[in-house]
């Protein structure tokens, strides 16, 4: 059957917004789209998410809202998407079947008996090109932050770091480490170019 052209168009409009440019992998265990750096927008904080999805009995179902309880709502911090240098000037379509990403959860949802109690995330964000300045984005309040680089030197300024490149041109690895004790650790890296 070929695509059909409508004989007439009524004055009714529909805008369908869909995920495009990806492989729909659901059903093969890899359901999901490529993970994004930024966390999903959290639901409104004044309501209680309840487990829905019960099968609908014949004749339909009517349900009533539950009074709000903000503590049941995930309290995530949105991490801005960092600007990074594209790795290639030819971006192929997203054909890989996306990897399911574990949710970022509030500390109290993970067991306190084991280390790494929180899923801490940090991201090095380029701030300026000259001088090479980077800041740290995090989904928590990082305490002890350690920066490392494979060449040149680093100058720390509050929550930013300035990289002074070595004389030798090339690519170097800038890394940042946060050790938050029982809460966990987080490490991020960025290739920087002199």
């Amino acid at each position, binding site marked *: *059957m070929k*695509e*059909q052209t*409508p004989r007439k*168009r*009524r*004055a009714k*409009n*529909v*805008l369908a*917004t869909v*995920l495009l*440019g990806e492989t729909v992998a*659901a*059903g*093969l*265990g*890899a*359901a*999901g*789209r*490529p993970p*994004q750096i*930024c*966390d*999903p927008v959290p639901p*409104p904080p004044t309501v209680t*998410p*309840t*487990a829905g999805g019960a099968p*609908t009995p014949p004749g*339909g*179902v*009517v349900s*009533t809202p*539950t009074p709000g309880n903000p503590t*049941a709502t*995930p309290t995530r911090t949105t991490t801005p998407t960092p600007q990074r240098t594209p*790795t290639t000037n*030819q971006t*192929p379509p997203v*054909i*890989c*079947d*996306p*990897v*399911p990403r*574990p*949710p970022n*959860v509030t500390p109290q949802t993970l*067991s306190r008996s*084991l*280390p*790494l109690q929180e899923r801490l995330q940090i991201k090095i964000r380029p701030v300026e090109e000259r001088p090479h300045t980077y800041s740290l984005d995090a989904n928590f309040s990082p305490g002890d932050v350690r920066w490392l680089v494979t060449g040149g030197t680093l100058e720390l300024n509050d929550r930013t770091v300035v990289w002074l490149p070595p004389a030798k041109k090339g*690519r170097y*690895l800038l890394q940042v*480490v946060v*050790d938050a004790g029982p809460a966990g*650790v987080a*490490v991020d890296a960025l290739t920087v170019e002199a």
Partner: protein
Amino acid sequence: MLRREGYSAAIAKFNGPDDTGAVIARAIAEKPRLIGLSVIFQFSAGDFLGLARQLRDAGSDAKIVIGGHFPSFEYEPLLLHHPAIDIVVRFEGEQTILDLLRALDSPATWSQIPGLAFRQDGSVHATPPCPLVADLDALPFPVRDGEIKRHRGVGDAALLGSRGCYHRCSFCSIGAFYHQPNGRPQRMRSVRNVVDEMELLQREYGVGLFIFNDDEFFDLADPRRPLAFADELESRGLKGKMFIKCRASDVDEPVFSRLKEVGLIRAYVGIETGAQPALEVFNKRLTVEQNRRAVTTLKKLDILADFKLLLFNPYTTLMDIEDNLRFIDDLAADGCVPITVARMEVYSGTPIMERLRAEGRLRGDYVAWDYEIEDPAAELVFRQMLAAMYRRNYDLEGLSKTAIQAYYDLLIYKHFYPKKYEPGIEDALRRIVAKLNRHTVGVIRRLLAYARTEDLCDVARVNKLTIELALETNRVDMELGERLRRWRLRLNRLVENAR
């Protein structure tokens, strides 16, 4: 479907928050009466809910309708907690959305429309699901507005030759989605109908690569279908390449050999795990031996066998993890495909979600369900792996992702420019990916060794090891990323010369 019925309809791309501005601008300019949000994946729900809210804030007065796998199961909390969402279309939506449009201004009649959920008088009302579309050939071909994507001179298009799946894997929402409404859970378009669409795509849009996104490409009830499909392609002289998705049990050498003759170059196989207990947890009804045979067969046929390993599930043991590492050693240490390791995530509507709930182990909420692994040693390995290899495994620019893209580039070069193909480029990529895979295995083995013998609760030592492995992983990824960058430059030159 909508256009066939005389409605003016358009598609707007939304792959994430970066597209929000463009979608809102379009909604404000075109003033649609209805905006439909297609949410297939649970962890994209937050992005779509944010879009709905911003559409409302921007002044759109369109009815905002959300549909797809996730909303079909979680319609109730979505409607209760997100006032920007007016209506949920549950399960297959073609007929429901048409019925809704016809009655859009008469909310009092919505309760007569199958497949809807909506608010009324402060409560959520849901009607029974609409029966599944019995004859997929009766549906028009999907709209292909705008230009077809082209990469390295090759146009590609995604299409579906079927819908649904007969299997009931415990972690997969497809089974629940297609088993709940009345109708056959897996339905096939006729071979002729599928090839008609492929012909149209090639003729009208210059498509050379057909990416089949079927939940399950093969028909359990008709083992001859792939051969009939191949015959149809051949009889019409359709030249193109194909990607498909399937289960390990589908990989039969004569059948895949025939499909290769008519253009199959990549198969995503739902391997999921190399540990038999995990296959049982997933209710895959497969053996590890079948998984191994599937990958081996595809390698033998020189069809790219893509797969991922869900190394962790709620019942994972250290032995399961070791079995998976051995699976990688045996089948992917040669770099035939970049291995990504991940945890099974919990999706709404799935049997595993109900099982965890019954066990009192389901955590999180309807937007993002969560759990802990029963065995604390395995849970610790997961936590450490996540912290040490997050960037490699999950980041859009992580090495696993860029290596998979490199394989895509290689396939394009190899199969669309065969006369100029230099086999050395494939060997070079395999060496990079082999090192990547071996390093991933090595990191997890070191975590296993710690979990087997050391104090799981020693925060200082656990953190120290995790940081050490994360720093090492980043160093390896930088080195391999640099090699991959140079490899890509070489490929660029080869493709340019070939075109």
